[in-house]
């Protein structure tokens, strides 16, 4: 019987009732059996078993640790030395990572086992994992639906029991969105809390690596293992943990716009439950600068994506297509290597950064972002948390949102945390029904910078998990 959480597995390992090799073998077998979900792009069978063996040896020698011997799934944009890492793109299909991401070195130190790399939207651009060059990941709750994105493979792997926990990355909701659609827990840490060294860059001023797990306690274990300042990422910082003892949750006044009716009911029910747990709900939180969030987010996203992806030129690494001259090499390599959404965003980024439009788009987006940050800061003087549904709907059908703009609009609740750098947590809040299938829905909490502990405590209270130590 597979343990349902990292904590459970860790207790069994410690009591010598199971070995890491046994856990890893069982998860690998299950992952192969559930191959149809397309959660993993590759299983690291041999390496994972070697790491598990080593973890068992370390434990025999008296070491202990919550992650020692725990099999984890890693998103395909996080580098593991010697393994392929491709950001689910044809551009990097045959690329082998030349070094470990800092989060990977940290997890190695803890003795974690990496069982495979998970599917995602190409270069972390999307919200459903449909932009993967290797096909969409299916939702374990209904295989005709998306798993969410961009960390869809990581969330599906955890939800389907193909890993005990996973790492994803969150640029505009990419950890929280699939966590919500798959019914698991996902944390986007404060910007700077976790090193980005070894994360394939999408939008450098938004990107954060975050854990996805079955429980809030597991999420905390993973977060504590990966956080911390890193000389290799100058934006990483220890940050001062805010004093947060209050139990006041603010709900933005216009939160209901665009919500599915049953998602709204679910959210209302969740707020009642929180009131029952002793939290005070305030519904009058005026965040006037929330309105232009999506526009500000996408302008910044396009701009930084076009800059970050300029490095893929078919010369130093990645796909190379032969052209007539050097320019021809660039044009052909980038045409063949990038998928449609990636190309669209690069071109849009080129547009918003062009001399004539820079002030009208990028300048205003930066102003809107600063205004929202100031708004959040002011709001957190009076309240301790902000709550919203994580997503306005449950998982949609694969192929349903063919028009790119409709997919962008689904990010309305998740992007403010990235714009303001705030930590945000999505926890499962029950189910709604679509075509006879029960689909998970998530609730999101946001907190002031470096307020992760308080945030995780709300998650624990909401789910009724034992208090965190």
């Amino acid at each position, binding site marked *: 019987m597979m343990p349902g959480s990292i904590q459970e597995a860790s207790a069994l390992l410690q009591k010598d009732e199971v070995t890491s090799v046994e856990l890893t073998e069982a998860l690998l077998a299950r992952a192969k059996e559930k191959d149809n979900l397309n959660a993993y792009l590759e299983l690291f069978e041999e390496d994972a078993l070697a790491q598990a063996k080593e973890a068992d040896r370390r434990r025999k020698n008296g070491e202990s640790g919550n992650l020692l011997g725990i099999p984890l799934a890693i998103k395909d944009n996080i580098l593991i030395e010697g393994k392929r890492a491709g950001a689910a793109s044809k551009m990097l299909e045959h690329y082998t990572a030349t070094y470990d991401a800092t989060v990977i070195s940290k997890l190695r130190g803890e003795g974690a086992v990496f069982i495979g790399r998970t599917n995602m939207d190409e270069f972390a651009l999307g919200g459903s994992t449909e932009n993967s060059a290797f096909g969409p990941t299916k939702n374990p709750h209904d295989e005709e639906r998306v798993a969410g994105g961009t960390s869809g493979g990581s969330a599906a792997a955890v939800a389907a029991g193909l890993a005990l926990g996973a790492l994803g990355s969150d640029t505009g909701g990419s950890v929280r969105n699939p966590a919500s659609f798959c019914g698991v827990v996902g944390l986007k840490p404060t910007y700077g809390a976790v090193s980005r060294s070894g994360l394939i860059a999408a939008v450098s001023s938004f990107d954060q690596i975050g854990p996805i797990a079955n429980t809030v306690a597991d999420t905390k274990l993973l977060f504590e293992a990966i956080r911390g300042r890193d000389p290799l990422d100058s934006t990483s910082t220890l940050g001062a943990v805010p004093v947060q003892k209050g139990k006041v949750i603010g709900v933005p006044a216009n939160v209901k716009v665009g919500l599915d009716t049953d998602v709204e009911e679910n959210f209302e029910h969740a707020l009642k439950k929180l009131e029952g747990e002793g939290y005070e709900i305030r519904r009058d939180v005026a965040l006037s600068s929330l309105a232009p969030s999506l526009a500000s987010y996408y302008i910044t996203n396009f701009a930084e994506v076009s800059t970050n992806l300029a490095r893929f030129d078919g010369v130093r690494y990645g796909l190379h297509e032969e052209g007539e001259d050097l320019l021809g090499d660039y044009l052909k390599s980038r045409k063949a290597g990038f998928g449609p959404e990636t190309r669209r965003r690069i071109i849009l980024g080129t547009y918003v950064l062009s001399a004539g439009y820079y002030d009208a788009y990028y300048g205003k987006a930066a102003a809107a972002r600063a205004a929202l940050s100031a708004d959040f800061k002011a709001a957190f003087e009076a309240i301790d948390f902000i709550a919203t549904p994580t997503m306005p709907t449950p998982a949609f059908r694969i192929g349903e949102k063919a*028009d790119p703009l409709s997919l962008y609009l689904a990010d309305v609740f998740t992007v403010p945390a990235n714009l303001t750098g705030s930590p945000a947590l999505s926890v499962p809040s029950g189910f709604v029904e679509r075509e006879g299938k029960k689909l998970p829905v998530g609730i999101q909490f946001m907190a002031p910078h470096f307020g992760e502990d308080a945030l995780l405590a709300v998650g624990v209270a909401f789910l009724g998990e034992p208090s965190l130590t």
Partner: protein
Amino acid sequence: MIGDRDIEKLAALSRIELSPAERESLRADIEAILAYIGEIEKVPAGSASGVPPYSGLLNVMREDANPTPAGTYTERLLREVPERQGDYVKVKQVLTQR
């Protein structure tokens, strides 16, 4: 309004080759997306511009110390290069005669 010529120019600046069919579908998508993000116009200019979104983030300098011994990563990095000549990355001629 975004025209065909604009898309062509942006694609050239982005160093991406597009087929005519793709140019047209991109044009339609981009027009819709720009119309949406155009709501950013309502944000007053300079309202808070220049203010970095995160407080306490400064430019970080580091000591130029502990250099990696030459050759440590050479093979690992060159293995990823599409075309190499010895320990060099092989690139097509940059300047050409017209």
